[in-house]
């Protein structure tokens, strides 16, 4: 641990303030709780909200996994994992199943989460109505009245203009039948994973100073229309490394003649499947 700094960087009073905000967020699923976000030694927009939430809930016996774009080895995931390894000296893992806390940017792991696990999302803009109404004083009232008509109109306009809803990530959801919530910029592919998830989902927005939550086993419904039901994206191909057909695939450009391949965005999911394949091949080998 670093000399001169408290366990997990934040002082205990700050952690207590953040835990109170988290408790309130859990009690009112999907409601954005303002909190006294601190200036962290990492830049705003790079996960300071998620880091503060993780720092407030982490204990010395926790096992931490950090992913960005689904991968453990992207630079910012490495940087945040190191931050906690340095300031809290906790065990880290890349295995989704082994982690007690998963901090994530832009993805929910493909592996089903279990009861007792906590997933912490890094949130750039917490307000789902922000692109439709820039004023916080207005959007807070719209939430108070559950007045979400503008969002339905926006989705309807998409259908009128493009033939279907043109939002592909950060797709708005209604939590527990009450609050409109931004799931953070995860692809809509991940939205169905939030519904009735056994894990606790916490969302931290440092720059915007908001925390919100989806408690375990809470209904999370993606907005849609009866004649335009919500649907997730599909690929015509499978992962070039592990052959998965049911995971979110990233497109990788491999030459300058339009050549490309598709691979799992979830690096743990992909590696686990590759390992199993190898294992199976060895077992069946004579």
């Amino acid at each position, binding site marked *: 641990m670093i000399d001169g700094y408290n366990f997990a960087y934040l002082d205990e009073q700050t952690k207590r303030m953040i835990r109170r905000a988290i408790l309130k967020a859990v009690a009112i699923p999907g409601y954005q709780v303002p909190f*006294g976000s601190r200036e962290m030694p990492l830049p705003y927009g790079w996960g300071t909200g998620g880091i503060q939430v993780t720092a407030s809930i982490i204990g010395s016996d926790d096992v931490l996994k950090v992913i960005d774009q689904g991968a453990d080895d992207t*630079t910012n995931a490495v940087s945040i994992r190191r931050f906690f390894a340095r300031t809290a000296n906790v065990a880290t893992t890349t295995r989704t199943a082994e982690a007690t806390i998963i901090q994530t940017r832009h993805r929910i792991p493909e592996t089903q989460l279990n009861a007792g696990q906590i997933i912490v999302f890094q949130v*750039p803009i917490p307000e789902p109505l922000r692109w439709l109404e820039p004023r916080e004083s207005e959007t807070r009232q719209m939430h108070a009245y559950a007045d979400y008509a503008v969002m339905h109109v926006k989705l309807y306009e998409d259908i009128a203009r493009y033939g279907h809803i043109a939002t592909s*990530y*950060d797709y708005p959801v209604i939590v527990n039948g009450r609050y409109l919530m931004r799931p953070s910029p995860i692809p809509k592919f991940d939205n169905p994973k939030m519904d009735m998830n056994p894990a606790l989902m916490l969302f931290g927005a440092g720059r915007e100073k908001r925390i919100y939550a989806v408690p375990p086993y809470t209904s999370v419904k993606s907005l849609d229309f009866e004649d335009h039901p919500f649907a997730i994206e599909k690929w015509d191909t499978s992962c070039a490394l592990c052959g998965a057909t049911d995971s979110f695939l990233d497109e990788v450009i491999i030459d300058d003649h339009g050549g490309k391949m598709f691979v799992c965005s979830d690096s743990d999911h992909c590696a686990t499947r590759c390992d199993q394949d190898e294992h199976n091949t060895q077992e069946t080998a004579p």
Partner: protein
Amino acid sequence: MAYVAVKGGEKAIDAAHRLLAKERRGDTSVPEITLEQISQQLALSVDRVMTEGSIYDRDLAALAIKQARGDLVEAIFLLRAYRATLPRLAESEPIETTHMRARRRISAIFKDVPGGQMLGGTFDYTHRLLDFSLAASGAAAPDAAPDTGVSGDETLPRILGIMGNEGLIQPERLDTDAAPPDLTREPLEFPASRATRLQNLARGDEGFLLALGYSTQRGYGRNHPFAGEIRIGEVEVVIEPSELGFPISIGDITVTECETVNQFTGSKSEPAQFTRGYGLTFGEAERKAMAMALVDRALRAPDLGEDVSAPAQDEEFVLYHSDNVEASGFVQHLKLPHYVDFQSELNIVRKIRADMQTDQTAEREEVLA
């Protein structure tokens, strides 16, 4: 495989840190810059970093500037992150700038004022000609400077106070009961109090405030300002710990204060009065203090019954976008990988294009049939 190369990893980060350290030091045949040199000779950089970093400590600000390779916004960020780890021990009494030992004090609205006009060391009337004699290192010390004209122990009356005696300027309401807000501990809420707004502006980016203040002068929320008084000098910081029960001085700080006299208001029932804007910074930062006063006045539009039509008058717009640590982080986070969101967007654009092509083909077939 290309795929692996795209993902950064630990080695790349370590290497980047080592490169950065090397670049910071530059050519090792050139002597390393000292914090004293930065504090003494780049004093105005230090002042800006202290002001926007919200901590009055010249040594730490100089260290931050050195570590940030002279990037002041990065230095402000370093200082802010350090500040966040410090305990908050006490609230000071309001500083009393009327008792400032001023080394500069000017008013643009009266030719002479009680206590006198005092130019001090200023760029204002220099001709901006590059002085090549400064390029030679080890140059002789500058000509003996005149004694710094520091105002005496007697208080320096405030110009706007003198106007106030005649009822010509709106009095400030003193809100002594309310504990001062602390933006570093509590999130912004709207409508914000004036104290909160001023705190936000004091921490705000100088360039942002300068542009906003300038916009009010060009007609976007015009409020007709005069530089009522600008003063720079030292003031005492006093705290009164509850366990002591009497005030103690904990030191002196340098501040720049600007009070503008603005457009008058009045009605049939209320006699005409000028209004004011207020700016205060650590150290010497006159441009920032003046810009702050213009924006402060613009933000008072709703309180003074004026229309809110320009960006500088829009509280949420100004207060949410003034902080350069927040802005710099969020703008630069675009450098982080976004392949997943981008993949989703690619999928949807391809789908929309394919749908349109199918529709067009169908239409063409209909026409032909």
